[in-house]
């Protein structure tokens, strides 16, 4: 099967039931997307699928063959961080940072469809992402200032 990730096309030969997350991490060596829960409840594995932030752990790789996938690795352009990545960095919006790539992906999708979200709109868009270190206010601030 073929998938399109970060602007490149890849051919994959993967076992049945392989998730998009495993395809990215294990087969394409793109480990920026993280495993956190395996049921789409924590958001650590989120990637952009045709611009929507989706949990890749519950997305079968076979279902996204004709879609455009962007991972955290695809946000940085020519050494320049995406403005959302830069805002997270500037705000220190993380502790262990294991949630950061999923948080950033969700925030990028939000900003693309709603450049100036209200506080409640940020909460609604980010509710599927868990920061277990709980520096949520810092993350809110980073997203607000982009």
């Amino acid at each position: 099967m073929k998938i399109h990730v970060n602007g490149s096309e890849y051919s994959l030969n993967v076992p049945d039931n392989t998730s998009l997350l495993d395809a990215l991490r294990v087969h394409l060596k793109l480990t920026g997307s993280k495993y956190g829960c395996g049921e789409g409840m924590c958001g650590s594995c989120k990637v952009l699928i045709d611009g929507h932030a989706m949990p890749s752990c519950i997305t079968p790789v076979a279902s996204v063959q004709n879609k455009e996938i962007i991972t955290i690795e695809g946000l940085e352009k020519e050494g320049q961080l995406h403005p959302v990545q830069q805002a997270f960095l500037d705000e220190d919006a993380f502790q262990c940072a294991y949630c950061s790539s999923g948080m950033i992906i969700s925030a990028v999708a939000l900003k693309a469809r709603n450049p100036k979200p209200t506080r409640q709109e940020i909460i609604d868009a980010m509710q599927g992402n868990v920061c277990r270190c709980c520096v949520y206010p810092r993350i809110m601030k980073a997203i607000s200032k982009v």
Partner: protein
Amino acid sequence: MDKLSLADKTQRPKAINASEIQSSGYTINRRNFFKLLGGGVAIALTHSYVYAWQELGQSMGSALPDEESIAAWIHILEDGSISVFTGKVEVGQNIRTSLAQLVAEELAVPLPRITMTMGDTLLCPYDQGTYGSRTTPYMGPKLRKAAASLKEALVEMAATQWKIPKESVQAKDGQLIHSGSGQALDYGEITKGKKILLPVNDQAALTPPQQWTIAGTSVPKTNGRDFVSGKHQYVSDMELPDMVYGKILRAPSYGASLVSAAIEKAQVSANVTVVQEEGFIGVTAPDPQTAANALAKIDAQWHAAPQPAKAEIFTYLKENSRQNNNEDPAQAEARKAFEASTIRLEQRVEVQYIAHVPLEPRAAVATWGDGQLTVWTGTQRPFGVQEELAEAFSVPKSSIRVFMPDTGSAYGGKHSGEAALEAARLAKAVGKPVKVVWTREEEFKWAYFRPAGLIEMAAAVDDDGLISSWEFHNYNSGGAGIDLPYEASVKHIQFHPSRTPLKQGSYRALASTANIFAIESMMDDLARQLKQNPLDFRLANLKDERLKGVLKAAAGKFGWEKEKVADHGYGIACGFVKNSYIATCVEVAYNRSSEQLSVLRIVAAFDCGAIVNPLHLENQVMGCVLQGLGGALFEEVDFKDGRILNPSLSSYRVPRFADIPPLDIVLLDRKDIPSAGAGETPIVGIAPAIRNAIADATGVKLSSLPLIPQGLKLTN
């Protein structure tokens, strides 16, 4: 090792070729220090017997007291870069940044010159582990002393070279400056060609916090860019050449024993290997999905053993607690004073087991070669894991290297090395490097929990509103934070260890959360009975100035005296753990028609002495308070018949964006007081503050944690 050398040097052990590792027997010592790490000048922050241990290449064991076992190296390389080697590990608390700040401050070098090598049992001196808020108060001062000693030694070297008195040499920005001529020598230039290992000079002068310019400032996370770009490699991201993925067969319930297992069906293809050793069954495959598919085909029969359920846990804990037959005279005295008093209360508090839920589950990569075992794993105790591995495989510790790259959090939940043992076992059996990453379900079921606890207490106050009797018993959850911070005429305080049906262990602040919840609930109820303001009642019974300080700071910022709206409540609580102090104020609102309880805002005031990094301290306090919100309101582990009934993030609720009220943090920077840790104490105030606010708003005096897992209904 090609794959690993791609990584950032701050995250990975320095590449050392195999012949060097073998010649050093996997133990670094003075003889091979410079051979392995390059020339220069190094300082060994150790005690004499630690030296002896290093020289002999022998294990020191873990029997040393904390302060005595603190050791670290600081090494100035010939290019002027500075390496700090410490067995402490980074789990998100940002000590990679704060310890570097302390070293940069005392060594008078720009911060970017410093590289921290952490949690590598080969390169770093022994360390008991990163827990108990010990890094900042113990490792911090020792590293400062080592860096200050090193700076003095460099000054002396320059003075000798220039043939001038050392008073005429100034160390600044990584340079030694001749005060007469203005001539400057970089630290690297003066260390060139040298291989000097110095002991720490206990007399070396430290820079007082009042004069700090690097420490005490809000330096961002040193390697933050690697995290926002997805480049940082956590253990679960690592890969070695020829590596396979391991999955382990788990029992269906605690205490169940394996009767039989048909493993043939799991052997689905030539690249799948089933490993069966005694009670252990695991599978390896070239990718995790194939391994999981194969594991699912194993037909195993188990014999279950009876296990207590959540419904009976508190009876169980009390019945199985260690009974003390010799009554403490203070207990009888406290009882007597209680009976004699007219203003008195008895309370019982129940605290459920909760889970750490580190977002990166347990993970390990293990590889064997020439009798040497190398393991990368996420653990708070790399040297402890090294000991576990040495025991499990009967190999000397000097043949085992454990390394921990910065890990996806721990909160006290990663003291053990389960995944490391499993990966090493499979790697040994299949003769290839193996990676084991636990699923979320495994993490919930097979890691360990914060203990459940039952607390029974009785307290009385005299006519002056002072505590006249205090009796306090904690069953199972622990003795941390059990002491009463208030003055009391008579007190009897006792921790009763018990048998636990679930595996329990460390957690942020340990039992302090339970004990301080109980203490602060009682204090509020006593104040209410006296018709006193809960803040005034606390202050009247306190002598500790720092605790009073945070109480007043929190109350001031909160506006404690302000009028309340109907059905709103204010709550306050305070406590201290390991020399840091927290006070928390909370406003809640109860909507009687929808029966909704909302936490409207939180103010937390915190004092941990001199602040090393205000930005990261605020993150620690914020994270602690808001993580504590989960344990306060809704987190609890449900279990029956040896099974965890909510082993997933859809069934075990953790705080999310919508749960987070506005939070104001007041940091008291006490530059006159040595810095203490901050990763634990701030969690202890939130639960009692909410509980007391609920009582204020509704009159309902809750007495269990979590407080309102099913919401709060005033009517039946």
